């Protein structure tokens, strides 16, 4: 009994549960405001290959969380979504309420930034896990769901899971809560896990523990993971691909190692170079200025005003996201880099 319930997949299970690839195609998100609507995402596209870990990176206001949440259509009320959000061959943006409910309960789950305010404060951890398991598989009896919950809690390394079932969220630490949230996702045996800044609120070593756990889940269960983060270094060892966002658009996308070692967009470079870890020059490199207001984006490149390499063209023409390296599908949205690349290709 227990073995069929365990989320740890048997080889056979993996075979017929190939997670679908997820992708955003020119997605726009507009939030209603009392003073006119505010467009948060301005045409975001990226692909999440099945079984991979993709990180959405950017500073506050870049739209990374909105992009992550849009994957599950968990946006604030009244948000208007344009474009297509594909999970396999289905468009999440176009799902009916019932389809969406099934999609969320069985296939895609989410972990939010703040574990303290994610769990229901008045329900025991166990009842929330059981509810989650049964939402995914209504055929489960309560006892089966409980068993599954205990197994899953073990799986995410929560010590003494049986007694923890009775605990209330406020009796647990942030790291434990984040594990419970991961367990709550896993009991549904999802194929996609969306994480919105899952470690920001946690301490360094807890952060490492949680990331290690996510890495394990990806490797061992083939779980597709999308992580929104503001700290590139934190997910560097985990993410297969990196999507760098700025002012509601994707500015660079590619394999993590390649993007981090050889960034092709000035913003990505600046973001990396200003981090204390890489910032070992005489003085720390800085990016001056601040991101543009989302309701007053410049006509050209949004980063042009702060960029070290700006030319007149950058201020006028908005760059498209263009491939700069075919085999790795490394893309960037910088006119000058694109020009530079094509020149070098011509020369070649």
């Amino acid at each position, binding site marked *: 009994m227990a073995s069929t319930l365990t989320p740890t997949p048997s080889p056979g299970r993996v075979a017929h549960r190939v997670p679908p690839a997820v992708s955003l195609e020119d997605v726009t998100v507009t939030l209603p405001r009392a003073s006119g609507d505010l467009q948060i995402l301005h045409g975001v596209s990226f692909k999440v290959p099945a079984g991979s870990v993709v990180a959405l990176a950017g500073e506050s206001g870049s739209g990374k969380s909105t992009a992550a949440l849009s994957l599950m259509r968990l946006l604030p009320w009244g948000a208007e979504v344009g474009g297509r959000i594909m999970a396999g061959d289905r468009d999440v943006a176009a799902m009916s309420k019932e389809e969406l409910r099934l999609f969320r309960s069985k296939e895609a789950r989410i972990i939010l930034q703040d574990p303290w305010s994610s769990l229901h404060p008045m329900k025991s951890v166990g009842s929330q896990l059981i509810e989650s398991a049964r939402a995914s598989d209504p055929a489960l009896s309560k006892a089966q769901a409980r068993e599954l919950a205990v197994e899953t809690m073990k799986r995410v390394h929560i010590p003494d899971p049986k007694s923890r079932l009775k605990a209330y969220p406020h009796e647990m630490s942030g790291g434990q809560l984040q594990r419970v949230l991961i367990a709550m996702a896993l009991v549904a045996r999802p194929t996609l896990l969306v994480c919105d800044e899952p470690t920001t609120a946690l301490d360094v070593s807890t952060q490492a523990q949680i990331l290690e756990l996510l890495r394990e889940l990806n490797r061992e269960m083939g779980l597709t993971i999308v992580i929104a983060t503001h700290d590139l270094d934190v997910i560097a060892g985990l993410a297969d691909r990196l999507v760098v966002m700025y002012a509601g658009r994707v500015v660079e996308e590619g394999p993590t190692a390649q993007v981090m070692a050889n960034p092709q967009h000035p913003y*990505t470079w600046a973001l990396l170079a*200003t981090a204390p870890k890489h910032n070992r020059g005489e003085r720390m490199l800085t990016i001056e200025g601040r991101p543009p207001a989302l309701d007053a984006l410049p006509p050209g490149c949004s980063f042009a005003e702060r960029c070290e390499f700006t030319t007149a063209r950058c201020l006028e023409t908005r760059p498209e996201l263009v491939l700069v390296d075919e085999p790795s599908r490394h893309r960037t949205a910088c006119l000058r880099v694109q020009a530079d690349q094509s020149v070098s290709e011509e020369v070649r």
Partner: protein
Amino acid sequence: MSTPPIIRTGKTAVDPTDVVLELDEVVQTFHGKGGLKVHAVNGVSLKIARGETLGLVGESGSGKTTVGRAALRLYTPTSGRITFEGADVSRVKGRKLRRILRRRSSMVFQNPSTSLNGYMRLGEILREPLDVHRVGTPAERKRKVEEILDVIGLDAAYAQRYPHELSGGQRQRVGIARALMLDPSLIVADEPTASLDVSVQAQIVNLLEDIQAERGLAYLFITHDLALVRRISHRIAVMYLGRIVELGAAEDVFARPQHPYTASLASMELTPEHQIIPEGELPSPANPPPGCSFHQRCPIARPQCARERPELTEVADVVSGQPRSFACHFPGELTLALADERVVTVPPPLPVVPALAAR
């Protein structure tokens, strides 16, 4: 060792005997609900010299913030002694406290939006320290405000603005400016960059370093950001559960950590395979484990660790020869795979223009 050398700018030559602040066996106990006693700080001793930056590292609950606040006498220490510029300030009160400590020290906070009073104009905020200590005439105070705005790179017209009209980075600059108004010899900076975006953090760090180079003041720099503390600090103190477990020159501590907890912290900078992740979680400060407080999570713990609490012992570093101390029965046993450290300099996507190189 293959670690690239870190070049610090504004690194004032520090005379370790010119002590600004000294904590001697400071204990800070708080009373919780139901008679629970929490030793937030449990016998911490440290010295900060003029012009020095001491990085205080630890996780939340380690007591690092309490140390910072105790140093500025926001609490009265339960026991122990706090000496500031040669004067014992552990128990002084009122005017005397104001004259000795308040006049010569200040604090920079983590969150610039909560540390500036939203109802006051920047001018009033910056002038307050001068008003409180009755420094100068109104005209002089006004001039001083304008000067300091210039130092932090804001136009004098900003004196008329309110904090919410500024960006996070600008606000933090104002927070720093306020801390500088009285020309202090010590600033306690409690995670001054933690709430800022990465691109803004560097601006703040540069500002802090410039100020130190120019004015020779001492920083007690509290942070959980290891890369940052490594860069900015002369010396680093690592705190765990209310005690200092390791203390030494920044490079020594990171290159050759002696305490396993420090090793684990330092390993977070490495690739995941080389990270040493402590098991479990920080125990409750209300009920610390016996013996070494880290032993339950320590990868190299032996029975002795559960019995005896290791004392902080001072030795000279084998490489640099600088003094360092640690509280571990088996120091240096856990080592780092430093050779594997990731590339630290990121190449720009385009050739760097000369203007940038000059910056």
